[in-house]
């Protein structure tokens, strides 16, 4: 306690010096919080944009391999002609696979679905669409359509269909209007019950969401599905969980991380550059604290000698300077977080994404700031504790 009491009195006595270094720590921590909040906000936004309309994990059987189209002297030649709709193998025992995916640790939602290409018509307008058939309750946990619904309602029963804004506009259709949908020689008439804007132009312009049964009938896959989509609690764990799911189900499984390698590389590069910025900022803060405390030790040699002469131990002298580092770190973290959060608030209106200073970020800033303060104070503190009291009182070097 004596160490803390003396540390506080030393800081109070050298008020100007203390305020200057505190300003330095505050600016450093503010930069730390601000940069972290921006990068975090940007990454969350990018991930939301990317994962808002796709599953974290997709389980689907391989496409059927090309069939040999001709044979010559016993050698089969494979010629692959891209069909309009790649023919997937049936998903054997998909209900059991769904249960196994659901039972995998880290998976929070599972949705079996049927998807395939089709043509949608309304009057003279026609448009190529991706028919997505799924159970409404399950699908909303994978792709949050209800929140992004701008007209109508989220309902997938009977002949209900939900489409994106761009598709509705292309077809000139609104809520309540019927549309014809044709896939191969099969045709259905569906009624639009909702229109969504999910923030992804491809999805807004292509998706036609209907019930699993409607899609199965339309795409000629009665009783079958094309894939099982899953959502995981930690998106960065998706790849590991995908491998586990594949091992459990024996069906090829792909994570969003595989599908979006470029994005992942971009995010990781961003993380690396953010870490470098943080390290340099904290180094500057540490050097500021260390230099001020080093000067303080030199200036207070006589006082340290007196402290030792009146019975203060080396440990307490060490503590006096370590506590100064802690106090710089604590107060700097508090003020810096405040300034960083305010700066984030100020530019949020001009940014295209949310800048959120989370409690986790504030706690990290606090921990990092105090640790930096203590580490920076250690060398000056050790020097003070090792001073020869007799020499210090005499004023010798």
């Amino acid at each position, binding site marked *: *306690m*004596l160490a*803390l*009491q003396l540390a506080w*009195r*030393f800081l*109070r*006595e*050298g008020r100007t010096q203390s305020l200057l270094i505190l300003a330095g720590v505050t600016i450093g921590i503010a930069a730390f919080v601000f940069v972290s909040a921006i990068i975090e906000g940007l990454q969350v936004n990018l991930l939301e944009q990317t994962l808002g309309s796709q599953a974290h994990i997709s389980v689907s059987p391989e496409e059927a391999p090309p069939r040999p189209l001709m044979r010559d002297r016993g050698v089969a030649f494979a010629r692959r002609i891209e069909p309009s709709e790649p023919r997937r193998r049936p998903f054997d025992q998909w209900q059991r696979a769904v249960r196994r995916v659901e039972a995998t640790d880290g998976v929070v939602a599972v949705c079996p679905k049927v998807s395939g290409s089709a043509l949608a018509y309304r009057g003279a307008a026609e448009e190529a669409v991706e028919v997505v058939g799924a159970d409404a309750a399950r699908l909303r946990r994978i792709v949050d359509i209800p929140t992004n619904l701008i007209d109508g309602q989220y309902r997938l029963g009977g002949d209900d269909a939900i489409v994106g804004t761009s598709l509705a506009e292309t077809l000139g259709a609104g809520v309540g209007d019927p549309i014809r949908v044709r896939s191969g020689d099969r045709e259905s008439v569906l009624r639009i019950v909702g229109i969504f804007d999910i923030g992804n132009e491809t999805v807004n312009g292509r998706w036609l969401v209907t019930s699993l049964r409607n899609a199965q009938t339309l795409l000629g896959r009665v009783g079958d599905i094309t894939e099982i989509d899953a959502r995981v609690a930690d998106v960065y764990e998706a790849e590991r969980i995908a491998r586990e799911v594949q091992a459990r189900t024996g069906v090829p499984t792909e994570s969003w991380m595989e599908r979006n390698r470029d994005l992942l590389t971009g995010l990781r590069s961003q993380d690396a550059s953010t870490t470098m910025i943080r390290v340099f900022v904290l180094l500057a803060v540490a050097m500021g604290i260390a230099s001020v405390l080093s000067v303080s030790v030199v200036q207070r040699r*006589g*006082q340290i*000698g*007196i*402290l*030792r*002469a*009146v*019975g*203060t*131990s*080396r440990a*307490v002298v060490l503590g006096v300077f370590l506590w100064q580092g802690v106090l710089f770190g604590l107060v700097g973290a508090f003020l810096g977080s405040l300034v960083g959060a305010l700066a984030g608030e100020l530019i949020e209106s001009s940014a295209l994404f949310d800048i959120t200073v989370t409690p986790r970020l504030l706690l990290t800033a606090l921990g990092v700031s105090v640790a930096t303060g203590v580490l920076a104070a250690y060398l000056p503190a050790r020097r003070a504790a090792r001073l*020869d*009291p*007799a020499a210090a*009182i*005499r004023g010798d070097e």
Partner: protein
Amino acid sequence: MTITPALLEIEGVRKSYGGGVTTEVLHGIDLSIQQGDLVALIGPSGSGKSTLLNLIGLLDRPTEGRVVIDGQAVDHLDDRALTALRGKKLGFIFQSHHLLPGLSVLENVMLPSAASRGGFQASMRAPAKELLSAMGLGDWVDAWPRQLSGGMQQRVAVARALMNDPPLVLADEPTGNLDTETSNQVFDLLRQRNAERATAFLIVTHDPAIARRCDRVVELVDGAVVYEGAPSTMKSWA
């Protein structure tokens, strides 16, 4: 007949400095101080007075010889034990006051007590105030050292040295920077404490007037004791 052990006993103490070429500044000093002694340590500059005081004050270690404080040999004590012994048995008064400017007058006086009890506590305030009142500084308890004159600061330093009621106080030129009148006032305070509580004082001084008022004088020249006895029988007084 009961033999009271000496408060301070030093035997054959030598002290050398330097790495390659060593210089011996104390050549086998013997000295004994009893409870209630008021001893002046005199000698020209460079004679080793401050070095001897640092050894007695456990701020430095002898190269050779033995230091015993209140019956306890200190040769093999580690830094922690020396610090504890120093806080309990010894008080220090320095020439340049050496008050801590960031602490109030009262906190400066409480410092030895705070050092031995691990922090400033409310219970220390009353005895510290009492000491300051005895020094004539009862109205200055909440002042800062910079607000006090040199004489007042030295009286605060005296109060600080007496805070833990140590049996031996080491004073290095306590009146060195003070005018004659203030010097006498400060010395009177030491004398009074010596008389009232039998606190022993070892006072390093260049001032013959102060040395003459002590009970015993030890004269150090070139690191050796050349005289020890009553001030009145000392031949070298000019």
